[in-house]
């Protein structure tokens, strides 16, 4: 199919212009600022040297990726069965629509409100601890809030819809006759799932995990509220530089470092997958 060159320019131009104005230009400004020195306004790479040579910033970067990875895994473990059930086990269209609405509704609420909700639920006197104590699982309330685990729980809840929707949209398009063929040939349902359904749904898993991972890496509100300042991820350090210390160049350097290292990780991830797919 050929399209009119003008349509092509328009089709391609609009998103490119959008990206340019709202991403490339602001990011370029940030990247340029990262080479400035706060003291005299001169040019220098000293900010990068500081990050690279100080173990504290490597630690923050490591924690950021570690939390994002746990969030991605947790969301996958919870989200995949959910998407599977909605697609294959819910027969009524109405019920399926209702489930989608329930999954999407939390996205309409501000993440600040949801993080404050977790403060109440996960606290020493919160519902989770009350239940654990009442069921005699623990003697006294356990510390969930203001730990890495607490941050992961809060973020996973926020990220869940992205995984469910991405995976479900792929599952819906899998040709069910393939599954029927596998069953006809005597495959156990679990084997049929592992050999047919799951491999075919991998594009959804990959896309979903990329969305969840990148959103988790850059999330600020949830980790800053649920960490209670005891765990520091990169977004919190960046905010601190821009809002409190007012060292914009160093904040910019941290932002560039986070973006570049995230891109590298994702590139590596995709490369491994591609190799694997070929092999």
């Amino acid at each position, binding site marked *: 199919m050929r399209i009119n060159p003008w349509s092509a320019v328009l089709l391609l131009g609009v998103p490119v212009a959008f990206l340019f104005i709202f991403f490339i230009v602001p990011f370029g400004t940030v990247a340029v600022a990262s080479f400035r020195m706060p003291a005299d306004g001169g040019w220098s790479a000293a900010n990068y040297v500081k990050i690279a040579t100080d173990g504290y910033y490597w630690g923050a970067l490591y924690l950021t990726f570690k939390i994002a990875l746990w969030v991605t895994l947790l969301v996958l473990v919870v989200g995949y069965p959910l998407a599977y059930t909605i697609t294959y086990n819910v027969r009524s269209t109405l019920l399926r629509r209702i489930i989608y609405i329930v999954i999407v509704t939390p996205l309409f609420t501000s993440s600040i409100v949801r993080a404050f909700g977790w*403060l*109440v639920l996960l606290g020493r*006197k*919160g519902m989770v601890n009350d239940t654990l104590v009442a069921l005699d699982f623990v003697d006294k309330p356990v510390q969930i809030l203001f730990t890495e685990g607490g941050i992961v729980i809060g973020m996973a809840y926020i990220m869940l819809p992205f995984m469910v929707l991405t995976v479900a949209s792929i599952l819906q398009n899998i040709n069910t006759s393939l599954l029927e063929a596998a069953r006809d040939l005597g495959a156990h349902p679990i084997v049929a799932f592992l050999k047919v359904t799951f491999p075919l749904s991998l594009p959804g898993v990959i896309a979903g995990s990329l969305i969840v991972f990148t959103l988790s890496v850059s999330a600020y509100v949830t980790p800053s*509220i649920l960490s209670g*300042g*005891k765990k520091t991820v990169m977004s919190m350090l960046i905010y601190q530089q821009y809002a*409190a*210390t007012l060292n914009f160049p160093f904040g910019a350097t941290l932002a560039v470092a986070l973006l570049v290292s995230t891109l590298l990780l994702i590139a590596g991830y995709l490369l491994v997958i591609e190799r694997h797919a070929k092999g």
Partner: protein
Amino acid sequence: MRRILMLGVTAAGVALAAPSFAQEKLVVAIYGGNWGTAIEKCVFQPFTAATGIGVTSEPSVSTVTRSKLQQQKGNPALDAVWIDGGISELAMADGTVGTIDPKKVPNIANVIDEGVYKRKDGSIYAASTGFYAVGLTYNTKEVKEAPSSWWDLWKKEYEGKVIIPSPVNAAGIPFFLTINKAAGGDIKNVQPGVDRLKTLKVSSYYDASGQGASNFQSGEAIIGAHYATAAWGLADQGLPIAYAVPKEGAPSSDIRIHLVEGTKKKESAEKLINFAISKEAATCLSENLYVGPATKGVTLTDKAKARMPWGPNGSVKSLFLPNWEEVNANRDRLTEIWNKQVAGK
């Protein structure tokens, strides 16, 4: 025909626009939330009623207001701005705030010395419209004996139930310096303060005042360093929360009004500043926000008097007003020390 129509439209436009020339409208940066609401109620509404000059408020936090002024330098869209102590000094150094002339703003003579901020050459760049402080906020049901010292936070029975501000909060660094001073350190040597804070078993460090308040609400925290205004706000909601001034001093700051350098509505903006520091406006702000008035001769109700940041019997002298220029010069270093040695312990 079309031309005639255009003329008509233009004429109508001019006619409609004319009254707005006569009735000037100021654009003023204030705070969000109940602080902004109180300023609108105590200053803007009575000011417009008295002078006919309208005010459009632009809510934002001090650091953002400062950035806006930097971007608008030379052609400001703002006419007057409220900025907190600490950031106010930075705006002065940026050259974005103008000079308040006592001849044009006569009420400045009625403001206490601590509330009038001058450049090295003696010119005034800011006037205080109320002091606030961070002191010992505690749950009266859980904390049996009213605390009186910062060191009470280290008591064994409060372990894991204490909150203090992080450096992102405006009170974070001043609090750090207060503890450091009480522990025998100074701004060059913060090791004594770090050593003490390292041993404090906190529940969490809060960035925003609301986060701190929510910790008291849920019972996650029972004692901590928090704003007097927030403590009394919780008490007004019926929670068993009280506030005490620690004997080592409560780190304090204030909400200050500034004239924007190069405003085209200087005369009206000066009138507004004069009004904001008047006895009536100061009384109203203190009654609503429990900020300590910077204007002399303010008479408060007993309730407000008991809730002043300096306590029922204190004065501005009982506050620990940081040397902001020193704090600003060391903000970077102190935040890094905090990140690595206190939060990341």
